[in-house]
């Protein structure tokens, strides 16, 4: 699913975020990316949907070479990958329904198919009764569920979550985690960057620790490994 070969990333301001990363993630895996702030976690995940371009090295996602991907092909790639952020990134003026439908409108789906599919994913994240609300009228956990619904509405093979529980209280975080687990169980690869020791230690999945731009640890059924 994801293949990184000696990937380096230096930002224009001279900061080196990644210093030679080699990682292989198979289809259907659930992977936590952990590590201190500023160690390169975010850069690592952002390379996977071509939000960033590697300075050196190869990034393959779903057999697409992202280093060589043309600018105008990026939208097509993004439609195969679901992305969830800490700050939700919902369109503030659109309703819950419209936010999710947007991801289907860009591939010119028919209104009939859109309605059916949006209601299905709203059911999946248990928000069917909030379809007409706008994001500001929802709690943080609900907003995150909307952004997850939007991320999976296109049946992506890969879901990338950048600290999805970072803004949420523990109880709400567990709701989000159970939804992500369900999505993973249906065959979608999930890559999640997180700071939550609690979640990583309880769920016991593969853990990739990034420190100083290098893979410091890569364990199956791993632990968080840092103080909370």
């Amino acid at each position: 699913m994801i293949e990184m070969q000696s990937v380096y990333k230096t930002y224009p301001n001279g900061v080196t975020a990644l210093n030679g990363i080699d990682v292989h993630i198979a289809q259907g895996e659930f992977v936590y990316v952990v590590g201190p702030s500023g160690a390169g976690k975010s850069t690592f995940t952002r390379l996977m949907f071509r939000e960033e371009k590697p300075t050196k090295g190869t990034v393959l996602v779903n057999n697409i070479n992202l280093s060589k991907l043309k600018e105008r092909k990026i939208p097509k790639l993004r439609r195969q990958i679901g992305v969830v952020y800490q700050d939700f990134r919902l369109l503030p003026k659109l309703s819950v329904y419209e936010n999710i439908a947007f991801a289907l409108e860009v591939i010119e789906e028919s209104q009939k198919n859109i309605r059916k599919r949006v209601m299905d994913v709203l059911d999946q994240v248990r928000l069917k009764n909030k379809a007409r609300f706008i994001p500001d009228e929802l709690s943080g956990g609900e907003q995150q569920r909307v952004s997850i619904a939007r991320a999976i509405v296109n049946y992506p093979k890969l879901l990338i979550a950048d600290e999805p529980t970072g803004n949420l209280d523990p109880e709400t975080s567990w709701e989000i985690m159970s939804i992500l687990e369900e999505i993973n169980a249906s065959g979608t690869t999930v890559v999640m960057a997180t700071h939550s020791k609690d979640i990583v230690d309880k769920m016991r999945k593969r853990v990739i620790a990034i420190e100083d731009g290098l893979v410091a640890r890569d364990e199956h059924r791993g632990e968080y490994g840092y103080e909370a």
Partner: protein
Amino acid sequence: MMNTGVSTVMKLRTMGRHFREGSKSVWRNGWMTVSSVGAVTTTLLLVGVFLALMLNLNQITQEVEKDVEIKVLLDRTLQDDQDINRVEKELKSISDVRSVKFSSKEKELEQLIESMGDEGKAFELFDQSNPLKDAFVVKPSDPTETIAVADKIKSIKGVSEVNYGEEIVQRLLQFNEYARTIGLALIIALVFTAIFLISNTIKITIIARKKEIGIMKLVGATNGFIRWPFFIEGMLLGVLGAIIPITAVVSGYYYLYYKLRDKIQFEFIQLLPFDPFAWQLSLLILGIGVFIGIWGSVMSVRKFLKV
């Protein structure tokens, strides 16, 4: 599995979606919309009044210019047709001459009598021994060349006198120049006003939308997909901004044309007829409004599609 291909031809329902989104956005943006429409309204109002003025001025100038003619009086010694034909040929060979018309001395007298009305009857006595001269009426193709053409005609053998109302021609030329200078200054002022008003509004819009555009791209929207609703929104803003100016210009022109026409009597000032001029002007204002609106959106969106 759903369709994930990037199709090059936009589906009709997608166009419909862009229209819905564009018009929703007009409504949702509230005060931003009011301020954009206000900017377009102000600009179009000025442009509309100015256009009505300029087009009428142009019309008047053209009417006056049409009347410019040079009267070429011939020597009485020129008797036979051969000589007259030679002068006619020479007149026609001068560049910038549009038409040459012969007017015999009998016809000249007839015209003189007619123009004098009752008093002209006294001249009928001259029927027997006409003191007038045969003449050519020459129309220059470009009125501003009148003086040059007249000078050339003077040097033709057999021409005794050249009349072209020097003073009128001179004043017309001056008037034309004033009108053009003032018109140009007004155009520049208007363009700058429009640019200032619109770019200001657009700037605010850009900042408000920067994040939204970034999110749309993350979800896999192409640049074109993002751009279209903004086109539509800009177009709608332009259309909304054209409503007041069109109403004002049409009713103002109606008043000027039908009400004031009876009160002020200038024979040489002939306004362009209300129908169809007012409607053509409305269409022009609408077109400019749509152009300004789309142009404004395109500029603002383009800058942030590179995100």
